[in-house]
């Protein structure tokens, strides 16, 4: 009885959070003089208007899902892996590097692409481990090191794009020279969606679920995240090793997302290669309360918003960052709702004890 009641109030609070987020976004739209309902309709149309568009949702979903899945490892270990953007970027850089080595040679594209993904995973992992090592051995908070390393990663891409890897002639913000077609990850006929990339993301998601929910490793991650001292004293767990492994996994997933961006979406390296998916992944992790099953649908929903808002500037003269407003408002409303719910439950418990 009480169980069911709890489940229903949870649902009610979540729905209220969504409604509240929509209201907040509407308020923002009204402030800039755009009709909210029209904007929401346009977003839906922009996302579902044609089969091609629906497929494009999955194009965005792929790297986003990988990123969010990887972040769950650091989240579960109690870490704020703000360096995820840099990890995606380093993945993209390493993938580009490998592809540049093989382009123009007669290496089979399959081999080159596979190596590009392996290198990307490695690049992301190394970048993440930098944060990990700084934390474990240097006592540097991962938020600070991550933020710093994000900037370094962006600077590295700018240097490459305008320096050693610049297009013939002059470097430009539009990035490096696109790779020849055979080095693009194959897509479905007539779509931009690559089944290979999609498959990789789904497999990554499943692996995350299994690791976090069904193994001792996942349990230990949580133990260290919840109380490293207790994990050490009562369970003999070294939080250092577990923290490093969580960073490594998050970095691998982020690096793979970067490789997807290079091989399946942009086919080159450019300054905005991460598309902000690192930040979005952090939001998704918070929104699902770090639960691996829910990142799938929520990441998909976020991908839909991103895609749907692309045409807003053209029609409504509203910037496409409206998707970001809505996503941020959702996380905000959700966290607010959780806080209110906890207080409400506590008060009910007290009232129950008093009566």
């Amino acid at each position, binding site marked *: 009885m009480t169980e069911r009641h709890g489940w229903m109030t949870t649902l009610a609070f979540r729905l209220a959070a969504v409604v509240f987020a929509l209201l907040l976004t509407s308020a923002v739209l009204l402030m800039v003089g755009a009709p909210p309902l029209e904007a929401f309709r346009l977003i839906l149309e922009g996302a579902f208007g044609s089969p091609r568009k629906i497929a494009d949702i999955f194009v965005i979903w792929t790297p986003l899902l990988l990123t969010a899945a990887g972040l769950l490892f650091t989240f579960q270990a109690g870490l704020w892996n703000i360096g995820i953007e840099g990890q995606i970027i380093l993945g993209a850089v390493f993938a580009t590097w490998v592809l540049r080595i093989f382009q123009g040679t007669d290496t089979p594209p399959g081999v080159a692409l596979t190596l590009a993904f392996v290198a990307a995973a490695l690049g992301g992992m190394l970048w993440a481990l930098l944060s990990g090592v700084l934390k474990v051995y240097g006592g540097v908070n991962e938020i600070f090191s991550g933020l710093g390393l994000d900037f370094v990663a962006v600077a590295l891409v700018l240097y490459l794009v305008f320096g050693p890897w610049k297009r013939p002639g002059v470097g430009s913000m539009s990035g490096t020279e696109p790779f020849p077609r055979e080095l693009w990850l194959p897509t479905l006929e007539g779509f931009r969606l690559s089944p290979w990339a999609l498959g990789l993301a789904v497999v990554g998601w499943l692996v995350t679920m299994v690791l976090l929910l069904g193994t001792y*490793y996942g349990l230990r991650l949580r133990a260290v995240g919840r109380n490293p001292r207790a994990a050490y004293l*009562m369970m003999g767990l070294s939080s250092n090793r577990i923290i490093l492994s969580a960073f490594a996994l998050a970095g691998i997933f982020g690096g793979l997302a970067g490789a997807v961006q290079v091989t399946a979406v942009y086919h080159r390296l450019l300054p905005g290669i991460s598309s902000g998916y690192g930040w979005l992944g952090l939001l998704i992790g918070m929104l699902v309360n770090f639960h691996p099953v829910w990142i799938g649908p929520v990441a998909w929903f976020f991908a839909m918003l991103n895609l749907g808002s692309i045409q807003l500037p053209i029609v409504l003269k509203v910037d496409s960052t409206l998707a970001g407003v809505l996503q941020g408002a959702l996380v905000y409303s959700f966290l607010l709702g959780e806080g209110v719910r906890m207080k409400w439950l506590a008060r009910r418990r007290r009232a129950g004890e008093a009566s």
Partner: protein
Amino acid sequence: MNVELRHISKFFGPVRANDDITVTFEAGKIHGLLGENGAGKSTLMKILSGFLRPDRGEIYLDGQRVTFRHPADALAQGVGMLHQDPMDFPAMTVLENFVAGSPGGLTVNRREARKALQELGEQFGFHLDPDAEVASLTVGERQQLEILRLLWLGARVLIFDEPTTGISAQQKERLFEALRRLAAEGRTIIFVTHKLYEVEELCHTATVLRQGKLMGRRTAPYDLDELVQLMFGRVLKMERKPPIPLGETIYRVENLVVEAPRVNIRGVYLEVRRGEVIGLAGMEGSGQRHLLQACAGLLRPSEGRIWFKGQDMTGRSYLDFYREGVTYLPATRMEEGLLPGMDITQHLLLSRPAQGFFLDNHWANGLAQEAISEFRIRGRPDTVAEALSGGNQQRLLLSMLRPKLDLIFMEHPTRGLDMESTLWVWEKLLERCRQGTAIFFMSSDLDEILNYSDRVLVFFGGQVSAPIPAEELDAESLGRLIGGYGFVPAEEALTQTTAP
């Protein structure tokens, strides 16, 4: 000024920090307020000095009822308190600290303040440089500054909360002189302490608190045994540890030295055999925890060697000890022992050796059910740790100890448990002893130490005694040792026996 507290009660949640305390402190005398840590001394004094408001009860100064909303109110009425940790502004100068808190506008008359500081200082033989930074002062000097400040602000009742902790012997002498003098001038001095000999040396009266209740008030000269009895009480009825045949030596420390602020443990030589129980007794914060942690590899001793099961474990980490069959059970359950947000099943899964890579939920559930029934935990396998009551958290913690352990270190194994649970916990622990486990535990409960230890290490003021066989001790003699009477540090004992 005569201070009268009538029916003072203060509750923190379910804890009765002060429970209907009525006591009078007359002017012109030094009043000792005695009690163990957690007895409610500091709470009572914080109420008297306006830091806390009582839930019930009244305060009278010279027969006038007063209520204090905050410390400044109390000080305006003449009640000032020196806290255990100096509450000053280290980055400022002595003079600035001296004038801080003085009533008045934004401007301060520095010249007048400087003069007052020097004059007052001379009276008491406190030599403070007005322009020195407070951060450069010793604890004793900061205390002197605080006394002068309170006097300047017109305090007629002065409360000292454990003032002798952390000051030198010379500063202590000077402090005691000042206190006697202040009392002779007609001020009321309240001296909070747990050190019996300080009360005997200094105080005209001694008021004893235990577990928030007033146990009695005595005037000098004191019957020390009676004070010990009032402080610690004699309500427990524990069985003595039955004789358990001891096995081979399993753990050995040689010349261990542990140094930390206020801790100076030296000359620890100890051989522990299978089945043996070593009790660490002393007032909280006397160094027991440091030694316990140093013995378990959680804290690096400055000197000395440690052997465990024939292996030299000197300098090895706790994880090495853990792998060899050692566990350290912390006292703060939620902070150091349990995982908030995780359930009983998960706790047990994590504290047992892994069964492969994947979790076996069926097996795990059985494990949890077993622990719940064996340790009588009031909860279900999916109950999260923080939802359990304190006693049940302790049971969960004990159920997490691996089935086969060679050595267990424990901080307060039965704190917060009622008598029945306490006896039951020890039954479980002694069962392990019979199977060859050795136990080190610290406790502030004298009967627990006396009844379950084979040998006792007594801690006082950051130093440790040589091991004493438990049968040579009783509650009175142990209580005296803990209070510093007849206490001989292990190092001195060593030199005494080796000297010709």
